[in-house]
């Protein structure tokens, strides 16, 4: 699948640094995810996983370094880059007092989605929310809200998905269907980068694994079968929430 400049990877970041006051969260991170792969980002709490994802999504500005989505630089061509990203965060990014459909209609307008009614129907179907379409988000269970937030992220058919601990709060069935969705996603040539605490999920879903530790990339490897690289011992003192 050719998105943006030919030959550029789906996600790439070079020399990312980010400080929060007296703390360095990222200390020079280079990362690259090719097309058609699902990459999993492992690391202890406070390693900088969420910060890295937020920078890639264009929600946070790095102190140094550059990020590209499909060859589009976030700093210079933010509009193009953002159109190609779907982001699932810790929170659902939804409005509790709007219905599922209203939330999606709103985001469809922001992303300039054409034929939005049809597209919204499809993603609701895909995530098993069709029968709740006109319920207010507030009345949905936590797992359903998480699924809707995933629907929100894929609504504009992005080329790259960024998911921050997508499995948290999901029941086993939903986790399984998320796994299917990601499998289809990468088979169709698109890419995803996700963080997770569960090494099981990482092993099952990942084509490629990154280990982020204390603001630096401590390991990277493609996954062959179940050969997951072991995490180097992390000092508890390095974890800052």
């Amino acid at each position: 699948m050719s998105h943006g400049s030919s030959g550029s990877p789906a996600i790439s970041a070079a020399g990312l640094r980010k400080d929060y006051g007296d703390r360095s969260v990222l200390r020079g991170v280079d990362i690259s995810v090719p097309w058609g792969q699902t990459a999993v980002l492992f690391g202890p709490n406070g390693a900088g996983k969420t910060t890295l994802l937020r920078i890639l999504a264009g929600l946070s500005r790095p102190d140094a370094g550059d990020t590209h989505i499909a060859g589009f630089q976030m700093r210079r061509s933010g509009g193009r880059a953002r159109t190609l990203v779907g982001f699932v965060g810790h929170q659902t990014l939804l409005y509790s007092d709007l219905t599922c459909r209203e939330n999606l209609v709103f985001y469809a307008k922001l992303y300039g989605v054409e034929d939005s009614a049809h597209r919204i129907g499809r993603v609701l179907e895909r995530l098993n929310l069709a029968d709740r379409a006109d319920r207010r988000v507030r009345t949905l269970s936590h797992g359903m809200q998480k699924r809707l937030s995933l629907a929100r992220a894929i609504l504009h058919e992005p080329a790259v998905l960024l998911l921050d601990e997508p499995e948290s709060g999901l029941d086993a069935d939903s986790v399984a269907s998320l796994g299917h969705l990601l499998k289809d996603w990468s088979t169709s040539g698109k890419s995803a980068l996700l963080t997770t605490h569960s090494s099981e999920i990482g092993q099952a879903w990942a084509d490629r694994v990154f280990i982020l530790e204390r603001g630096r990339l401590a390991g990277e490897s493609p996954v062959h079968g179940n050969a997951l690289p072991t995490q180097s011992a992390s000092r508890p003192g390095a974890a800052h929430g």
Partner: protein
Amino acid sequence: MAAIAGRGPTDSPIRSSLRDPRFWLLVATAALTIIDGYLIFVVAPTDQVLGHIQRIFYIHVPISILSFLGFLVCAVAGIGYLIRRGEVWDRVAHAAAEVGVVFVTLALVTGVIWARPVWGVWWTWEPRLTTTLILWLIYVAYLMIRHYAPTAQQGRAWSAVVGIIGFVDVPIVYYSVQWWRSIHPVQVIGPEAADDALEPIMARILVFSLVAALALFSYLLLERVALRGAEDAVSAIRRQGTYD
């Protein structure tokens, strides 16, 4: 950090401070201030109408003018920071706002001391005094926003935009307060002060006071910028220490 590293083993603290321009600026400021005090309290003639209280005018006017300079520097450095992203710009903006707030506070206090005997009230909603008070409020908010920002980066960007908005607002505040005052004149009990009836010697002392205040302003600004630089250097060391 650079200053410590650059100091050779034979260098005493005194010799190194002799090479520091800030040291000489401090000396100049001290000399100018002492001479200024002599001029204000000994040389300047006593005002025939207002008496000794008029001498506060040589302090009040220069610090008011320089507080405006402080906020001009703050706004310009804020724009510089947003465009160039250099932390030096931010240090200058922050230091200028702090020195500006100190000067504005002094301007308000001296204004109140002046108002009591001259106008017969402690506080009067006179246009310049009122504008100065609002200026004070805006820049206190500027300093608060830095304090309340969750991260240093947010604090730098937020205070820069507040500095810009505040500076744009000041002339509008001044004109609106002046129009408002022209409808509701100030109740003046004591004799009116006439700024234009200034004797030549008084005008010259005022200019000298302005120079002395400018020296003090520049010294405080440079010292504060250097201190902010040192604070940032400490922060950088802490960041490294987090992991080593």
